[in-house]
């Protein structure tokens, strides 16, 4: 069993016991433990189930490359699925749950037996479920949905806080091993601002664990001294437990910090002038049968658990390797008092310094030997031994509790590659390493990343430090600083003999063994799966990846990548560099959605724009509706009223007596300057420059495609100035539209624009009593003679400076009054008080919409959708025939926009006045297109119950609509139809007598 050793553990503090629960079972660990080390110390070797076959899975690694030990953390609003136990610091009281197993980890009913697994081979997503089709809906899809996904989604809102942190540095060093520390030190000594980031909880990387010495002393001493030196420098910032997750375009860097206090996580957004990637290397598994059995671990991880956390993986650990580094694990286990029954070294010649040391300690070494398969029920109970050169004939079975495997190390080139750096194959070390001739480049074309140490393919521990020094000096030089030139510290470690390629163990393993050689532990991809994909023609590495799902698990192929490439290479008779790697994309490790969202959630996600009278509306029964970024009252509900009743009351009261509307959200853009007239003539389809000061005109704006995108009333302020009203949602866009043309096309025109939308509160006073209430306020002559329809005037109303526009969107006598925003509430209050005698009542957006629809006025976004022209809407009268040019003019002459059978605006009256057409319903003519779908001849764009007419009304776009007035057409409604008569779109007061009053 795996247990805690009585002594040792460089990272744990035995004086601080921490309690946690694992699937409800109370367990204990120490401060400094990771969740994985604490689980192993408690003999919890089985930690999860694989994705496809639900096979038992144990901890394999000790870092972010871990594919198996994914757990659910916490509960309720703090629940986090898929946390990697190997990178999660143990905390007191932690609630930890296993995933992907039902009903429990030990007895999972989802385990796929050998017979069924034949159907889950490579490409099973694409093949298995194609036939019979009827099975898809009833059988396959529900089964897949139940099984799909890792972990379970949290069932409530995230209770934790997250934040962004922005930082600028000259040099960012990713990785705090000896190479990273050396690079940071060199850059800092050259006078640069340095940010040094390390994903683990302590500095120094593998050097101390692996017996490296620096200048004759243990590496730990040099690490401590260097960290102290860096901490003393004001220009250096150091962060532990922070992972650089991505190097993006132009060197933008994201990093995720597991915060100890305050927010749960911080997402760092970093701009560094140069990046040193000292991210180390990741060990590879060995491809032997049943290498996925719990208890089979990476050799480096076994060493880390033993040395850092005093965790024994079991009394007997068999080491299997193709390189010298794994001997360190055997030596470390032996020094901890544990047994290593054998080191199975696939190489025939074993004579490096480390093997000699192991041999001297009495550890049996078997050169040329390999694992034919792990054995055991559930977890490892032994290994079957064979010769590497053979086909797997079992020579003996060695009993053991753990297997430490090493297939060599792959430089962690993710950051280099994400940013666009290229790799080259190092045939001696059997690895892809950064190609310094093709680095990631920044905006100026110069290299922005320097790789250092193991990440640069410099694996020997002794050379790592030197490479870090060189990288730090190179970074400084690249930034124009003066690096030190003297001799730096030198590291030393035992010489290592070369690695030998072992892409299949044993090399002649027959299919029966290859079926059980796992490449991707999380996604259950075996060597046979990849070979099958190659046979079926998926020879490109990117295709094979997607077909087999190799490398598509949450570890993104950190362990499986190179093994898969080797199998593809073998199948194609090519070399590994000829196959090439898949693309490395950010993030390096998963980033929580909470961290990506940061503080931008809830009310802070996007500010709500509020008018000057917002508080009054809220206190008087407003039912809110979002309109662009604004909130507007949909209606004002009185006690006991439904929303529909409130809306109907508001419409009737406005038509009969007096309504008041907060119209402040309407866009108000001032266009001024000597060329303002020429400019508004170009923006609007009709002519605006002939407008006299004091007059208003309704105008339409089209894009260059000829389609209508905004409308509103333009008021001529003076010779040089126009006030352009836009829709509530369109003000920012229209203003940007104006600026774009002025800055990029007609930059020689003398025109200035200003978006004044929020500077004015605007109140519409609407209804037969509108003039009476304004006259009661006093100050401006608003008689029909002084202020005719479509005129505006300014003065002082109730003591408040005001502009009064006599315009109407309801068809009633109507005045819109604009006052400085700070006076908005005061004017509103005066109007409500003076209007009491005339039954004044506020109305909301729904009453506004109903009244405009009753009048056949179009609404941008209802009657338009980006494909509708003014002509389609019967607004030809607002499109100038005389102007030489305006935006959209040329397009409106294109053949498609002049087709006689275009859908055009009509009114629609259902034959049953109580039936309201569904919004967006399509009209059909009963014919069926060759594609099998019914031909549509129109659609509903606005539809209401009209309180004024006491029946349903609708507007719609219908093929040749205006030519078909009186015709009855059918609208699809579920399985049935609704019949409606095409009528004139103006339902109410067609002569406009009311607004002219």
């Amino acid at each position, binding site marked *: 069993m795996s247990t805690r050793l009585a002594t040792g553990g460089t990272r744990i503090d035995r004086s601080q016991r921490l309690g946690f629960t694992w699937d409800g079972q109370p367990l204990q660990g120490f401060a400094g433990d990771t969740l994985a080390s604490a689980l192993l110390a408690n003999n919890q070797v089985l930690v999860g189930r694989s994705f496809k076959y639900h096979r038992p899975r144990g901890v394999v690694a000790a870092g972010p490359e871990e594919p198996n030990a994914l757990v659910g953390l916490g509960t309720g609003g703090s629940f986090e699925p898929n946390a990697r136990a190997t990178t999660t610091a143990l905390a007191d009281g932690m609630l930890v749950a296993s995933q992907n197993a039902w009903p429990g980890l030990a007895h999972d009913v989802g385990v796929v037996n050998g017979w069924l697994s034949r159907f889950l081979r490579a490409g099973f997503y694409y093949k298995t479920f194609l036939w019979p089709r009827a099975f898809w809906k009833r059988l396959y899809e529900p089964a897949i949905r139940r099984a799909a996904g890792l972990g379970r989604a949290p069932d409530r809102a995230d209770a934790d806080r997250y934040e962004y942190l922005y930082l600028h540095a000259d040099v960012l060093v990713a990785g705090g091993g000896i190479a990273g520390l050396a690079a940071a030190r060199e850059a800092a000594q050259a006078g640069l601002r340095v940010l040094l980031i390390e994903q683990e909880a302590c500095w120094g990387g593998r050097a101390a664990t692996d017996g490296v010495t620096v200048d004759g002393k243990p590496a730990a001493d040099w690490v401590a001294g260097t960290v102290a030196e860096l901490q003393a420098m004001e220009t250096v910032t150091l962060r532990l437990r922070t992972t650089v997750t991505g190097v*993006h*375009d*132009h060197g*933008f860097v994201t990093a995720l910090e597991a915060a100890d206090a305050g927010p749960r996580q911080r997402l760092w957004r970093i*701009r560094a002038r140069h990046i040193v990637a000292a991210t180390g290397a990741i060990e590879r598994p060995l491809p032997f049968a049943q290498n996925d059995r719990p208890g089979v671990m990476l050799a480096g991880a076994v060493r880390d658990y033993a040395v850092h956390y005093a965790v024994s993986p079991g009394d007997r650990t068999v080491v299997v390797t193709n390189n010298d580094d794994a001997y360190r694990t055997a030596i470390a286990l032996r020094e901890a008092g544990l047994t290593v029954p054998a080191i199975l070294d696939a190489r025939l010649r074993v004579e490096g310094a480390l093997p000699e040391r192991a041999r001297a300690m009495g550890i049996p070494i078997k050169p040329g030997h390999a694992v034919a398969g792990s054995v055991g029920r559930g977890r490892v109970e032994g290994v079957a031994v064979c010769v590497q050169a053979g086909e797997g004939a079992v020579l003996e079975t060695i009993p053991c509790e753990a297997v430490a495997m090493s297939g060599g190390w792959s430089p962690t080139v993710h950051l280099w590659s994400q940013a*666009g750096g290229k790799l080259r194959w190092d045939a001696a070390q059997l690895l892809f390493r950064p190609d310094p001739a093709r680095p990631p*480049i920044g*905006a*100026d*074309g110069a290299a922005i990343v320097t790789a250092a140490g193991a990440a640069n393919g410099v694996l020997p521990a002794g050379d790592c430090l030197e490479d870090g020094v060189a990288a730090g000096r190179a970074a400084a030089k690249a930034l124009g600083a003066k690096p030190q030139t003297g001799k730096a510290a030198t590291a030393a470690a035992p010489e290592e003999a070369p690695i030998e390629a072992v892409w299949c163990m044993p090399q002649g393993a027959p299919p029966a063994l290859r079926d059980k050689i796992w490449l991707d532990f999380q996604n259950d991809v075996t060597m046979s799966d990849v070979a099958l994909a190659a046979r079926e023609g998926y020879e490109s590495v990117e295709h094979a990846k997607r077909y087999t799902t190799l490398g598509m698990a949450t570890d993104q192929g950190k362990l499986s990548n190179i093994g898969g490439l080797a199998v593809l290479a073998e199948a194609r008779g090519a070399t590994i560099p000829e196959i090439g790697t898949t693309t490395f994309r950010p993030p390096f490790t998963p980033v929580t959605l909470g961290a990506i969202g940061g503080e931008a959630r809830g009310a802070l996600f996007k500010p709500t724009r509020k008018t000057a009278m917002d508080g009054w509306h809220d206190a008087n029964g407003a039912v809110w509706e979002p309109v662009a970024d604004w909130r507007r009252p949909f209606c004002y509900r009185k006690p006991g009223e439904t929303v529909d009743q409130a809306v109907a009351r508001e419409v009737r009261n406005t038509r009969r007596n007096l309504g008041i509307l907060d119209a402040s959200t309407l866009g108000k853009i001032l266009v001024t300057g000597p060329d303002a007239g020429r400019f508004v003539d170009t923006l609007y389809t009709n002519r605006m420059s002939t407008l006299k000061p004091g007059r208003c005109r309704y105008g339409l704006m089209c894009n*260059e*495609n000829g389609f209508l995108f905004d409308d509103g009333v333009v008021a001529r302020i003076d010779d040089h100035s126009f006030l352009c009203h836009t829709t509530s949602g369109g003000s920012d866009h229209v203003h*940007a539209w104006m*600026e*774009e043309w002025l*800055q*990029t*096309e007609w*930059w020689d025109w003398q025109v200035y624009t200003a978006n004044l939308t929020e500077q004015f509160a605007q109140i519409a006073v609407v209804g037969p009593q509108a003039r009476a209430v304004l006259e009661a306020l006093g100050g401006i002559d608003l008689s029909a003679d002084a202020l005719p329809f479509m005129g505006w005037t300014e003065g002082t109303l109730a003591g408040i400076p005001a502009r009064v526009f006599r315009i109407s969107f309801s068809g009633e006598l109507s005045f819109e009054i604009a006052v400085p925003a700070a006076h908005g509430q005061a004017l509103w209050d005066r109007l409500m008080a003076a209007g009491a005698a005339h039954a004044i009542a506020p109305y909301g957006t729904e009453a506004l919409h109903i009244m405009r629809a009753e009048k056949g006025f179009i609404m941008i976004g209802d009657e338009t959708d980006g494909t509708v022209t003014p002509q389609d809407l019967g607004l030809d009268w607002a499109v100038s025939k005389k102007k*030489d*040019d305006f935006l959209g*003019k*040329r*397009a409106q*002459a*294109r*053949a498609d926009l002049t087709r006689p059978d275009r859908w055009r605006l009509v009114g629609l009256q259902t034959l049953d006045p109580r039936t309201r057409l569904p919004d967006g319903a399509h009209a059909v003519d009963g014919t069926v297109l060759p594609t099998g779908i019914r031909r549509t001849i129109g659609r509903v764009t606005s539809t209401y119950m009209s309180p004024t007419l006491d029946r349903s009304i609708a507007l719609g776009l219908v093929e040749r609509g205006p030519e078909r007035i009186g015709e009855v057409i059918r609208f699809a409604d579920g399985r049935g139809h609704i019949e409606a008569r095409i009528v004139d779109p103006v339902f109410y007061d067609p002569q406009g007598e009311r607004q002219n009053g």
Partner: protein
Amino acid sequence: MLQLECPVCGVLADETELVPGGEAHLQRAGPDSTDDAFADYLFTRANPRGVHFERWCHVYGCGKWFHAARDTATLEVFGTYSAQTTAPPDDIVAAIRARRPEWEGPA
């Protein structure tokens, strides 16, 4: 995340401060243009792998449009310049030629 220096206000702006406006130096086809010329103006855009001239607006900054000369494959920026030009200025062309001797020149 791209960074472009706004030539109007001088700020080295992150991509999140900017909005892209597509190909630069398009010539507007007016009311008298032929159908083909107008369709070209509306719909046809260069999409090179390599040197490209683009419109950008410093929308969350000074609000001004400018032009950028950029390599769409390597993301190198050769320079940014005023939007109030009908062709890339000489210094920009020279900056491109210095790094892309094989470049055929502006279309």
